[in-house]
């Protein structure tokens, strides 16, 4: 094994540890929800209480969730708009810079400024 391969192996072990922790956390959340659902299973009357409580005054009419959803949609649209602008402006900058430096080198990102698909990290 070369030294370079040894580095990649050690890095991969660290990455695996991180993945285990992250997906373990997700699994814990799913398990928590499943346990709560089990408590409620077969109790149709109580399901109505759950729905009512979710949108009730004590639960702020579920306003934080509604606001979070609206903010997320707005952020996604804003990001899409920014990518389009980047694509337009980058072409102009490139053209102007090439007038001064004909052999200008590029970063190799996609035209929108995101990672090029060929450079996506594959372990």
């Amino acid at each position, binding site marked *: 094994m070369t030294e370079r391969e040894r580095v990649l192996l050690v890095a991969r072990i660290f990455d695996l540890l*991180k993945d285990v922790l992250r997906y373990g956390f997700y699994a814990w959340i799913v398990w928590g929800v499943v346990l709560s659902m089990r408590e409620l299973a077969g109790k149709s009357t109580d399901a109505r209480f759950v729905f*009512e409580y979710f949108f009730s005054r004590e639960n702020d009419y579920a306003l934080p969730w509604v606001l979070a959803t609206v903010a997320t949609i707005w952020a996604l649209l804003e990001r899409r708009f920014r990518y389009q602008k980047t694509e337009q402006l980058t072409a102009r900058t490139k053209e102007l810079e090439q007038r001064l430096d004909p052999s200008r*080198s590029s970063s190799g990102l996609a035209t929108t400024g995101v990672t090029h698909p060929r450079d996506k990290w594959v372990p």
Partner: protein
Amino acid sequence: MGSMSAQMFVNHVELLLAAAVLVALFYGPWQSFVLEVLRQNLFNLRDSLFLVAADRKISFESPEYRAIRERFNMMIRYAHTLNWSHVLAHIICKPRDVKAFDINELVARIENPEVAKMVLGYYQRAMIYAALAIVARSLFLLITNMVFFPFAIVLLMLNARKINERVGRAINTDIDVEQGRKQLVAAS
């Protein structure tokens, strides 16, 4: 189950969902956001370098300009692969078969000392931005930093140069390894 149980159920599920959404936000949009901020900062530094050459303080054709611009390009291109586990792996393993990028050797070849100092400053800022992005993209480092922040500051003050050099070399080596991997994949 009465209305109180329903309340407990909703509170419990809401808490779990909020935790899941926070983690998903951290590993999703937050990662892209930090990456884009890092890339924008690196683009700004590359632009500053370009302006130095446009002012004819250094030639566009000089090997030093080309090498430093190419390093900025590689940092921008492979910014998404930078993370603490890779940097730590490079610090632990210290691979000798990867020649580390040496900025000091490059700037020493620039004739104008003012320009050399300016270019070195751009490069050092790029390294700081990269290191900050690595911390901001890691939940582990963010949490541990909350606890160890005062110790980290003291350690950094005592050993700033050595730590900067080691982290900088590890970041550069990681970029070179990634570039090598891409070239190998492209060749095969």
